[in-house]
């Protein structure tokens, strides 16, 4: 069997699922198509990861699609997040329907057409994210990242409220401008490589070709290119000061979409950044890119602090937490050294597993309170929601990097990288900011979860929602104490790629 066929399968499955869901007429059919597709996708992703671990990189169509360990890790995480979200989405939208969220729902027509939009756009969205990871050509990668924006705009405006249209507009516009900068950066990279490679064929932008010649690239151009790429893909990742779309989009989108934006799109944008970071480091040495990454990383963590402290909405606080974690990851990459990239990718992995859990908990609470404001709880939601409450608290502890949860380990690795490469001041500042965010976040969520009984009706949450919650929570507990060997192997290999070794 051709090893490249798995790449083809990974891209074909979500495309087919999108088309089938679009043609489906009943809700159950659409749910089944999505669930089956994402289970199959996760299977293929695991297969790809094992192939990459055994045989190095896998490629197809003359290297048009290629997967090294870094791509395989991204595909694995994307597939995992997509599956978790699709399980949760079943319960979430069923409850939405019971709550009569979809307007003018007389004959069920509006509900079905809204659901069809969700169930057919989501696989396309996932397809675009997978293409980002698998495209060898940096231009195609840009096209795919832009496609993630386009596929998700109508997912963000899903509810059709004035506020959700506002959020979608800001998302599309800020994303569009940001990505145009990234395209400029890509063009300049192509230009700086142009003289060395002297090819006008497709291979001229293939990362696997570029990375072997990066040392001879034109230096001034590459410098400008990296700045533009950082601004561009940084906008997509929601790095401060280009983060302003993030809280709006995360709080207005349906919860499964928000979880995918936070846990999978963030990875895609950072993945694009890593690819260019490697080229820049090879061309200009580590100093230049590192400094920029450290500045933007610290800025992101710093910007998140005040907004976490005075936050009124438990959906928006998750967005600021995501800005904070994007910053931490960028800092890890910027610290460099042997540990920096490893810390970043560990953090990215743990974040992709923990963040959806928090969004799911927030979604449960929001659907129960019919609001995303803390003050509407009027007491501890642990009383009406005995499953969601404790898990929300546990997720908060996990995401803020409290031991024994695994994010403590990755943050610790990043800090060690910082001290190890003599970035004393940024590392100390990072510790202070992280502690502040920990306090703010925990106080808010503890107030929401614990406290006197608000005398709200007890709900028995839909079992699909409970499945995904308990499944993710137990995975996080397991990961806190035991990271499977092959997964760690994959992350370490990926860190080697990201570190430019």
């Amino acid at each position, binding site marked *: 069997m051709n090893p490249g066929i798995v790449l083809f399968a990974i891209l074909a499955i979500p495309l087919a699922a999108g088309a089938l869901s679009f043609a489906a007429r009943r809700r159950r059919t659409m749910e089944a198509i999505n669930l089956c597709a994402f289970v199959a996708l996760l299977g293929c992703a695991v297969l790809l990861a094992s192939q990459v671990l055994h045989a190095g990189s896998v490629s197809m169509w003359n290297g048009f699609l290629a997967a090294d360990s870094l791509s395989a890790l991204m595909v694995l995480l994307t597939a995992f997040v997509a599956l978790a979200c699709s399980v949760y989405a079943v319960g979430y939208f069923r409850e939405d329907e019971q709550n009569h969220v979809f307007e003018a729902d007389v004959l069920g027509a509006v509900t079905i057409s809204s659901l069809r939009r969700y169930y057919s756009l989501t696989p396309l969205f996932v397809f675009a994210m997978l293409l980002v990871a698998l495209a060898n*050509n940096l*231009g*195609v990668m*840009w*096209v795919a990242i*832009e*496609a993630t924006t*386009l596929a998700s*705009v*109508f997912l963000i*405006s899903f509810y*059709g409220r*004035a*506020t959700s*249209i*506002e*959020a*979608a*507009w*800001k998302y*599309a*516009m800020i994303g*569009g*401008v940001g990505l*145009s900068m990234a*395209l*400029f950066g*890509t*063009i*300049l990279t*192509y*230009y700086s490589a*142009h003289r060395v490679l002297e090819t*006008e*064929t*497709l291979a*001229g*932008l293939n990362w696997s070709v570029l990375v072997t010649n990066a040392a001879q690239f034109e230096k*001034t*151009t590459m410098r*400008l290119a990296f700045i533009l790429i950082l601004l561009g893909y940084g906008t997509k990742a929601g790095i401060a000061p280009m983060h302003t779309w993030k*809280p*709006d989009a995360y*709080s*207005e989108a349906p919860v499964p979409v928000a979880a995918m934006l936070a846990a999978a799109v963030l990875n895609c944008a950072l993945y694009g950044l890593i690819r260019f970071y490697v080229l820049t480091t090879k061309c200009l040495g580590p100093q230049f890119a590192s400094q920029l990454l450290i500045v933007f990383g610290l800025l992101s963590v710093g910007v998140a602090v005040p*907004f976490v402290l*005075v*936050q*009124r*909405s438990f959906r*928006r606080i998750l967005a600021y937490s995501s800005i904070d974690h994007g910053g931490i990851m960028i800092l890890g990459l910027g610290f460099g050294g042997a540990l920096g990239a490893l810390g970043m990718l560990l953090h990215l992995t743990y974040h992709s597993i923990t963040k959806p859990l928090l969004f799911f908990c927030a979604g449960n609470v929001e659907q129960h309170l019919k609001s995303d404001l803390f003050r509407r709880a009027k007491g501890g939601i642990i009383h009406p929601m005995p499953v969601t409450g404790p898990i929300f608290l546990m997720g908060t502890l996990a995401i803020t990097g409290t031991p024994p949860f695994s994010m403590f380990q990755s943050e610790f690795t990043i800090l060690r990288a910082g001290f190890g490469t003599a970035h004393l001041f940024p590392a100390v500042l990072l510790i202070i900011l992280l502690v502040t965010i920990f306090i703010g976040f925990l106080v808010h969520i503890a107030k929401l979860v614990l406290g006197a009984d608000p005398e709200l009706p007890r709900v028995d949450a839909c079992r699909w929602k409970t499945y995904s919650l308990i499944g993710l929570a137990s995975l996080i507990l397991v990961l806190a104490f035991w990271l499977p060997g092959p997964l760690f192997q994959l992350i370490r290999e990926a860190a080697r790629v990201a570190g430019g070794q």
Partner: protein
Amino acid sequence: MHFFQDPQFGNRIITLMAAFVLVLQIAMVGQRWLVTNIRVFAAQSFLLAGIANTIAYFNHAPHLYIAAFLTFTLKAVALPIVLERLVKRIDIGQEIAPLVNVPLSLLISGGLTTVGYVVAASFHRPEETMSAANLSVANLGHNTLAVAVSLFLIGFYMMITRRKAIMQVLALLSLENGLFLAAISLTYGMPLIVELGIFFDLLVAVMVLGILVYRIQETFDSMDVSKLSRLRG
């Protein structure tokens, strides 16, 4: 007719057309009427297709013909028609009402053009063009790259200062025009498949944004994006 083979002649034509592209961009800044603005954008895209054709002819880069053809059909014909229909359909007030008044905007555009030239100058290396026997990329790049960077910056400026949602879409498109110009003047365009992908994205983007503009108009009864300010903190 030997000058039809002379790269120097091609170079001059390209520079001339690039200058017109810049003039049209600044005209867009100064223009107060929505439909006129869409037509100016169409003319600009038409010139851009001309530049791509010229480069393809004089520098023997046949894949640029395809890019030129796509630019012409998409950006100069299809998208302007779609946008004009959108304007007619939602029947909005024609005047743009920018945040900054026109004379000041023009002055700022002039300043941004200077910045564009300064940025482009850092790419200019005369010694390399002397050594190359025929027209090198760098030589072709200098003037057109300056125009491209200016288009990019002015497009950026327009996005910030225009309040009508549809004007922001137009500004984004003209910004994209700047990128296309940069790509063809620096490297004779991107590889074909990337170019096709970019055009596809552009087409989808305009459809998505068009629908969104329509929804904004329906929901807020206005196209003024400064009314989109409920989400804070």
